[in-house]
């Protein structure tokens, strides 16, 4: 059974204080690892897709990396507007070319000014 575990559950940082969020996964046949950002009262917003170990993606202050067992979301010099819940998900083939996602429970990130 596919499993995704995110840590920590919650993280409070000062503005400018860099850190990393962890996503550990077990999946039979990884078809992609996804990072999303979710703001209160909103649906998840897509950030990155990673497909193979060693791959890295960057967007502004965020950088996602992938190994065979885990992924990291590095946040460099965060700002208060980076406060959100960050979700990790793995894709598995589910039928007809569609990939269902198994999500972790998320890391709730607060950046204090």
């Amino acid at each position, binding site marked *: 059974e596919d499993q995704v575990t995110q840590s920590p559950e919650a993280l409070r940082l000062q503005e400018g204080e860099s850190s990393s969020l962890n996503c550990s996964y077990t999946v039979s046949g990884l078809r992609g690892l996804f990072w999303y950002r979710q703001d209160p*009262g909103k649906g998840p917003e*897509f950030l990155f*897709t990673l497909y193979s170990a060693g791959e890295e993606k960057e967007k502004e202050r965020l950088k996602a990396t992938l190994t065979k067992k885990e992924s990291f979301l590095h946040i460099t010099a965060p700002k208060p507007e980076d406060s959100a819940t960050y979700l990790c998900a793995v894709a598995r083939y589910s039928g007809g070319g*569609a*990939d269902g996602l198994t999500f972790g*429970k*998320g890391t709730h990130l607060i950046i204090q000014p």
Partner: protein
Amino acid sequence: DVKVTQSSRYLVKRTGEKVFLECVQDMDHENMFWYRQDPGLGLRLIYFSYDVKMKEKGDIPEGYSVSREKKERFSLILESASTNQTSMYLCASSLPGPQHFGDGTRLSIL
């Protein structure tokens, strides 16, 4: 930008009612999905569809059904609503690749 629109942000229904949640996407995506999101449990896949009139069960299909008569529209049906179906329901669509989500329907069953 992909736009996934869910017809209601908030909905209150009574136990035993038949409930319809509607989702429309504007990007001609092949795949559409329904998830529910609960505190402490995260997002869980209920049903998905990879083509018009085609549907597959996800991880928690019990008590739900779906309908996809047109490519852009995917409906989730609660056949006889129960209080344990009170939740946030999220619709998503994709080509093969990343899924794009709507803003959800918060459903309360009284």
